């Protein structure tokens, strides 16, 4: 039995933490995207009701939020500890570096996880600050919420934000980086836990790329959809 402290501070153990927190965050963003699919409707009732329902869980939702913050910090801190170690591991750089290709998973994404991750981290802070702690009922962003009575009109806030081309471009940019992060992350997280097997490696990597594309596109289409009011344009065209 390896003492837990020693195990988790080893290079292998730190990657267990990285992979565990990363895969949990991956689970979170799947749920987050599923909820946000309501934003593809021009009518904000469904989205506002969804947000109000989450809020109504009270203590439970706060516990989940604290858990998410812990996961983010765990992931980011172990990322930085690992990265610091890499930087020291090759003090003198090569004057030429070239991949030998083959089965290497060396991509722009896999070599720059710390950059995509760092941008995502900064983004999450701004994102939560501007939406969760943005204008609410007291500022007049109210909507009718049926059984919930008067609820916050979060949909209006989102739509207003996504009519600003700067915000839309920033979201699209960060979601592309998220796609890059996930492209390597899915396979890497499983490999870090030893959950890969020669028979499935190719398939898992492929699945990971699809996961990355679906999530990245799923998220980045929301601001674009709202900016160009595509639900009216496209649905209007169908009618």
């Amino acid at each position, binding site marked *: *039995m*390896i003492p*837990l402290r*020693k*195990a988790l501070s*080893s*290079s*292998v*153990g*730190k*990657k*267990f933490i990285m992979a565990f927190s990363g895969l949990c965050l991956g689970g979170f963003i799947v749920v987050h995207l599923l909820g946000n699919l309501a934003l593809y409707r021009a009518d904000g009732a469904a989205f506002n009701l969804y947000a109000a329902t989450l809020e109504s869980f009270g203590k439970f939702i706060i516990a989940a939020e604290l858990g998410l913050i812990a996961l983010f910090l765990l992931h980011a801190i172990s990322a930085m500890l*690992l990265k610091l*170690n*890499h930087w*020291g*591991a*090759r*003090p*003198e*750089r*090569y*004057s*030429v*570096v*070239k*991949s*030998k*290709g*083959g*089965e*290497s*998973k*060396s991509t722009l994404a*896999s*070599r720059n*996880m710390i950059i995509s991750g760092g941008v995502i981290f900064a983004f999450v802070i701004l994102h939560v600050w501007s939406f969760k702690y943005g204008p609410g009922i007291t500022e007049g962003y109210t909507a009718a919420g049926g059984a919930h009575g008067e609820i916050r009109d979060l949909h209006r806030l989102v739509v207003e934000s996504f009519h600003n081309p700067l915000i839309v471009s920033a979201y699209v940019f960060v979601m592309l980086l998220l796609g890059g992060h996930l492209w*390597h992350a899915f*396979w*890497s997280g499983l*490999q*870090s*836990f*030893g*959950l*890969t*097997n*020669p028979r499935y*490696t190719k398939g898992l990597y492929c699945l990971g790329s699809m996961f990355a594309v679906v999530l990245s596109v799923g998220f980045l289409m929301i601001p674009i959809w709202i900016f160009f009011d595509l639900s009216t344009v496209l649905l209007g065209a169908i009618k």
Partner: protein
Amino acid sequence: MSNTSQSRHSMHLTLLVWRQEGPHKPGSLEKFTAKNVSEDMSFLEMLDFVNEDIIKSGKRPIEFDSDCREGICGCCGVVINGQPHGPDRATATCQLHMRTFKDGDTIVIEPLRAKAFPIIKDLVVDRGALDRVMSAGGFVSVKTGPHADANAILIPKPIADLAMDAAACIGCGACVAACPNASAALFTSAKISQLALLPQGKPEAARRVTGMVEQMDKEGFGNCTNIGECRAACPKEVSIDFIAKMKREYFKAMFAPMESAAGDGGA
């Protein structure tokens, strides 16, 4: 070498070779011209050939490591145009032929770079770190007695094959050199897996993986980020599936009872 074969197949190359007097001295790339290099030479023969001229001119020859020159000892290994052991896959530097290059090419030759591999001179690096990782558990403790019967312990063929694939590692350090993080995960995992797969290696598996990973970390290698450049550079094509196996072995060791170290009175 006859003149005709020289003129038919020979080439002129420019070499940019890393020169460094000693471990803590500054180094830099020095330019050499290699004339009349035969395409039938191995890369190391080409360096020998260039060194003859350097020696004749009274200068210090280019230092590099080699021993078997047939791809089995793991002694050779330089980074050629940014690729450990050069552009060919599944090839050690000693097995690389000059026909891989073209007349007029410029070839940049650097040592295997990692903090854990201090440069001794020019292209010669100290890979003692890998030996110390081995000493931390890369063995099987056996009672030496009468010769045991072959096949007394049956090993299924697929398992034996897999262990053999891991055992193909010649410990050259190309994986470390190729890794963007200078991690020794492929080397360490190959050595761990080779023994963990076989019945004789199982009793000590938990202690082995703990000790070898600990030593690997102590030596100042970077961490694996599952990029797989190691696998591409490996002259023996050792698979990163063994890195996954190392992770599983480590996870098991976190919970498995561990037999005490050899020599302290048994289990």
